[in-house]
């Protein structure tokens, strides 16, 4: 039944791609983030939906009359340079094996998709559609897992879809924290009371799903977003007064298991899990010190030979005291920054930080340019929401291996498009009533 529904649905959403390639970007986004294969049991289990959507979108776009010109943007140049560096790093890296190569393929696919977004998602209607596709894919997991967490009375341990970057509970928590601002933006944009209710209910379930991950990284991400909101808010006292009962009720209804887990944040330096991360960060730094320009290649720190090699020279970084690394157990980098450092060296880390900084500058530019221009108010509100997603990624990502999280690259590309749109001289047809989404 599910297989049939998925097949019919997939054919139905793919058919318009032949006429409108931007629909392909929506399908690409949906299949990448929902991972539909996780929800079927029969013939559709091994169908590469995402690959089909990607190839078809690119082909149709190339053959169609749709403009192929990308916006002039520093962020896109940085993303392209990041892609070139990643390719050189992978093929000249120290870690051989299929794992790194598979990661490189995903990395290239993510970067290509960000260019597709920059080229095809060029109007407000298309941006809205992409945001709804994100809601129906990434948001779907949050709603479903949040509902399971609630019906199980807080016993369900939330994990993301298997076989995706969100499969880990901590990764899932970060994904949901970064998604929430978009759900709230869609709520604000909607004119229908029923649709507003759907978004409010969804955001509550997404919050429940974050709690259900029992992830300390998720809590730190929420705290980071909350602190930023406090600084940004013009009504700080009201904000604090509103947040206190929310926190109190969350603490009251949270399962003991969750409270106990969060309490360990205060004693992180005695926590094996946290100190294991510090060891992995040191190992990644050692790789980058030996290969400063190109790094060790994708997943180098998780390669057994590479890990054991650098475990022998671990003393070089005794400045930060930790126990020696387990010689038989490579760990993931556990930080977006150290992940890029180990994989792509210092040059890669500089490019990655530059992408983050330029994306942040794009949000600020959009907010500034949209100010006092009613027709661009939606862009200002969206850029402001996306700042929260960036904060969540920058803060929570410090302890998670999510440097190549496709959702964030979608946001980077979306910001490029928005900045390009609001920077253009005012076309006469855009000066008029503000478009509202349903």
């Amino acid at each position, binding site marked *: *039944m*599910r297989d049939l*529904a*998925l097949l019919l*649905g997939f054919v*139905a*959403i793919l058919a*318009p791609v032949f*006429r*409108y390639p*931007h*629909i392909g970007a*929506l*399908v690409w986004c*949906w299949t990448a983030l*929902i991972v539909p294969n*996780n*929800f079927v*049991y029969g013939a559709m*289990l091994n169908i590469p939906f995402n690959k089909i959507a990607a190839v078809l979108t690119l082909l149709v776009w190339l053959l169609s009359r749709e403009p192929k010109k990308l916006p002039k943007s520093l962020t896109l140049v940085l993303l392209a340079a990041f892609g070139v560096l990643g390719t050189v790093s992978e093929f000249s890296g120290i870690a051989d094996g299929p794992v790194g190569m598979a990661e490189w393929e995903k990395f290239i696919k993510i970067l290509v998709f960000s260019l597709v977004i920059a080229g095809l998602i060029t109007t407000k*209607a*298309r941006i809205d*559609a992409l945001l*709804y*596709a994100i809601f*129906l894919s990434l948001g*779907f997991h949050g*709603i*479903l897992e949040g*509902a*399971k967490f609630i*019906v*199980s009375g807080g*016993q*369900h*341990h939330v*994990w993301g879809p*298997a076989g995706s970057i969100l499969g880990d509970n901590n990764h899932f928590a970060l994904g949901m924290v970064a998604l929430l601002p978009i759900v709230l933006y869609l709520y604000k944009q909607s004119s229908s009371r029923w649709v507003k209710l759907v978004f409010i209910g969804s955001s509550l379930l997404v919050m429940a799903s974050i709690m259900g991950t029992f992830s300390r990284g998720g809590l730190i991400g929420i705290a980071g977003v909350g602190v930023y909101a406090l600084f940004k808010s013009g009504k700080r006292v009201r904000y604090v007064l509103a947040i206190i009962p929310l926190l109190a009720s969350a603490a009251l209804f949270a399962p003991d298991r969750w409270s106990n887990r969060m309490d360990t944040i205060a004693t992180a330096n005695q926590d094996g899990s946290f100190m294991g991360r510090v060891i992995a960060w040191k190992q990644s730094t050692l790789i980058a010190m030996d290969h400063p320009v190109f790094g060790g290649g994708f997943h180098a720190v998780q390669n057994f030979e590479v890990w054991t090699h650098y475990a022998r020279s671990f003393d070089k970084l005794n400045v930060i005291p930790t126990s020696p690394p387990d010689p038989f157990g490579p760990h993931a980098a556990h930080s977006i920054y150290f992940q890029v450092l180990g994989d792509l060296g210092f040059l890669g880390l500089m490019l990655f930080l530059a992408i983050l900084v330029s994306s942040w500058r794009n949000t600020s530019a959009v907010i500034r340019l949209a100010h006092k221009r009613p027709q661009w108010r939606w862009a200002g509100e969206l850029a402001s929401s996306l700042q929260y997603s960036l904060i969540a990624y920058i803060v929570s990502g410090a302890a998670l291996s999510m440097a190549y999280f496709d959702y964030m690259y979608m946001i980077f590309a979306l910001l490029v498009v928005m900045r390009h749109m609001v920077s253009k001289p005012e076309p006469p047809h855009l000066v008029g009533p503000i478009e509202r989404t*349903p």
Partner: protein
Amino acid sequence: MTSVNIDRVFRTKNSILLTPGRKVKGVVWMEALMFLIDIVAMVYLVYWSVRREGWLSNNA
């Protein structure tokens, strides 16, 4: 059903920590229903989007 999916269903069953039977089955049904709703919503979104482009509408 492959082993991967059996694992996933059992993971749901284990993590729900309810007595086997109707409630576990209910969660599996809830997942299926929500997935179907999501597919329908995605189809609606795509056709809403093409209508905004002018296709299938009076302005085409």
